[in-house]
């Protein structure tokens, strides 16, 4: 397929892969050597691509990519264009901490063909870290490789307690104060598992409040001999598939007001009628 996705291939145990994307001749060989020299406890694979999308021939045997590194050469506008074109073929899930920008040949300044501010802004737009490194200098390459491996460990989930999305919140480059590119940068990054939890918590609160309001309404309804059929439907969650599996929705109903109409309501709340699919509705009299 066209887009490069982080979860397209299955993960292999104790392996991580870096994909270096950039034009030819930037010094990728030295970076690869330095990456292999960093002492790690897992298998580290480095792949190189000169453009995206990746060719379709190796699609089946391709490894899952843990970290995507874009190489930009400040003396070559061509390398910047290659990276800009490649960024179009990267799925948005990658930008949660799995993308890194590396800029080379930043000295001497007279050879600049790319305005450095534009590269910094590009990295800031994609909320990804950026470092300047001279790939011809051994010490500089070693430092860059060590930094990449550290971020790779986080992106691959090998460091307990720190995820790549948390890292993105902590160390992505800040935008300059005078320029605000898009409001996207001002919203906080949210962990993907937080959203359904928030929704289910809201539903529980709503259900609880309704359970308090229910007897009063029924009391008046018995007087007026009126039936409200839409109540059970109001309790169905907006997106049942996002709820974690095995969640139990509890309806706490006070004993005093337990009556035939209420039991009828509770039966209406059974999963088959409402469509909560997979989760149990337990009615417990308190």
């Amino acid at each position: 397929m066209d887009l490069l996705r982080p979860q397209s291939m299955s993960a292999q145990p104790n392996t991580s892969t870096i994909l270096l994307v950039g034009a030819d001749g930037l010094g990728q060989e030295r970076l690869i050597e330095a990456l292999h020299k960093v002492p790690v406890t897992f298998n580290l694979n480095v792949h190189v691509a000169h453009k995206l999308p990746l060719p379709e021939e190796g699609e089946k045997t391709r490894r899952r990519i843990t970290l995507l590194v874009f190489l930009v050469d400040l003396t070559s506008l061509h390398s910047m264009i290659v990276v800009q074109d490649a960024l179009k073929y990267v799925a948005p899930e990658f930008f949660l901490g799995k993308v890194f920008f590396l800029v080379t040949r930043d000295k001497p300044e007279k050879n600049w063909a790319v305005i450095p501010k534009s590269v910094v802004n590009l990295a800031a737009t994609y909320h990804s870290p950026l470092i300047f490194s001279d790939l011809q200098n051994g010490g500089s390459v070693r430092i860059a490789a060590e930094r990449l491996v550290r971020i790779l460990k986080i992106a691959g989930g090998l460091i307990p307690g720190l995820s790549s999305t948390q890292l993105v919140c902590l160390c992505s480059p800040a935008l300059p104060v005078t320029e605000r590119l898009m409001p996207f940068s001002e919203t906080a990054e949210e962990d993907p598992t937080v959203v359904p939890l928030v929704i289910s918590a809201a539903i529980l609160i709503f259900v609880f409040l309704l359970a308090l309001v229910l007897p009063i309404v029924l009391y008046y309804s018995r007087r007026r001999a009126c039936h409200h059929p839409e109540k059970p439907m109001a309790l169905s969650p907006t997106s049942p598939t996002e709820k974690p599996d095995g969640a139990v929705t509890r309806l706490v109903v006070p004993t005093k007001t337990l009556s035939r109409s209420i039991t009828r309501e509770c039966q209406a709340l059974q999963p088959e009628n409402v469509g909560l699919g997979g989760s149990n509705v337990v009615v417990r009299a308190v």
Partner: protein
Amino acid sequence: YFCFLKAMKSLTKKHFHAYRVSPLCMFSYPRLQHYAQMLETFLTAEVKCAGDPTTNSGFHTNISVFPGLATGQRDPEAILIQIFCKQEQKRPAWEGLLCSVEPEPSYLTVCMPFVLLPLLLVHGPKKFTTAWKTWFERTFDCCVSPLVIPSYELAWMAALWAGAMSVPRTLDLQWSSPPPVSDGLHITMSVNRNDALRLWDCVHTSGEEEVGLFKQGLEEHIFHHFHVILDAMILESVSSGVASANNSGHIKVLFHKPLVHILVASSYLLDILIPTKGS
């Protein structure tokens, strides 16, 4: 007006090296004559220390205000420094022009007793430059470093000069090979003046960024014929009928009219680049 024009013309057709100067401390305009005398004594002392009897023993220096270049609101007047050898009184052996031509507002805003004249154009032999530089840095506690013009600025200048050319001269662009390729491959492209004008006019009508399109047009032409990606090479120098500029900061202006614009463009560079250590 005529002396202004004459002064401007005196700047044309000379090969200048561009430098950037940090703000000058305790520089005052009424004391220019005093500074000239100080420079004279310094230079004679330097020559005596060097102990070379064949060189001229006497120098005459002149520091004066150069009118007409301070076009911005807060720009201080430009200073022209000339060193004459004793034998030749008419033509200066070395000339330096310190000016401030509308530097970017985000650049330093200096207050008294500092004076900001960030752009320095030097014409003359290197030995005078080094001698003058030591004296200047010591006297005014500043730092003089070479100004480099990066490739993207050169491309911008090339596009603008192509549109402004009125002299039948070709637009020459020279590229050099990127650092990994050790054996230098130099590509020189000479564009006929009419063709360059036509390309510039076409670029104006399309509505997108003009300079980028102009550059892209030239590069695609080369790619089409020779399959060489000029984007990956370093643009070293640009020369046209109007002016010529080099990567290492050599500027030569052939007409007095665009002089101020070129100086403004050079001042713009001062904002972007930070001087490197040891330069």
